[in-house]
């Protein structure tokens, strides 16, 4: 078993209303100094050892992310 993390983020040129809402709220809550926030998704997958990187890349690209509006990264981590 391996643990795989996939992070999916809105592309830089794409509007990110969620991140913006967080960024706008922080100063109101008394937290200054955060100049920009982007919000995306974080997936943690438990995968069998025979699942190779190419398959993981394919899962991320075709399913977890929407390549039209999102970028993504895939990495294996220690479980």
């Amino acid at each position, binding site marked *: 078993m391996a643990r795989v993390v996939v992070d999916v983020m809105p592309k830089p040129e794409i509007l990110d*209303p969620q991140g913006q*809402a967080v960024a706008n709220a922080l100063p109101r809550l008394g937290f200054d100094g955060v100049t920009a926030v982007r919000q995306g998704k974080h997936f943690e997958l438990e995968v069998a050892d025979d699942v190779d990187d190419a398959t993981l890349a394919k899962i991320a690209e075709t399913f977890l992310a929407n390549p039209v509006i999102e970028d993504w990264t895939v990495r294996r981590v220690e479980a």
Partner: protein
Amino acid sequence: MRVGVITFPGTLDDVDAQRAVRYADGEAVPLWHGDHDLKGVDAVIVPGGFSYGDYLRCGAIARFAPVMQEVIEAADKGMPVLGICNGFQILAEAHLLPGALTRNHKLHFVCRDQWLAVENNTTAWTTRYDKGAEILVPLKSGEGGYQADEDTLKELEDNGRVVFRYVGDNPNGSRNNIAGITNARGNVVGLMPHPEHAIDALTGPTDDGLGMFLSLLDTVVKA
């Protein structure tokens, strides 16, 4: 009876809550999210909608609004407070009520007429109902699944703090079919379904929801 109805940016059902207060012969007092006082109201309704877009988590941003600090203080002193849908989410985020509301288990927004069983008719908002009565009101939410840890659930169940329970199939994956709960004192109630949309059979499925606003009238008159 003067009842404050809060409007945050993104609040939608404030007009409905105000209308429901009027139907119960009360005076609806609009409160703005930036207000620093409650204008001398007898009770507060935190209505439904998508405050601040509900972008981070439903209610997560709204609970920090200035007016909410006033509401928290007043609630602690016993003022009746009702949170409907987004309002319930805000009250939970503000820790006026325990637990949290999460994404519906089937991942879709659900708008339907929903039967609820009244399980507690001693709160400030439910005295007009018979215990065990079933009422039909709209439910419309995407994140209405009530979640809490086992201890909290036990505490709620053992002390009769579950106010409303879904009847029939669970619409959103709520633990124990919980639709609404109250705090220990019974003055703060939160529920996902919308009693304010069921005050007139012309525009809602029934007028079953009116009982909540009439209950408040009794509570305020008695106080």
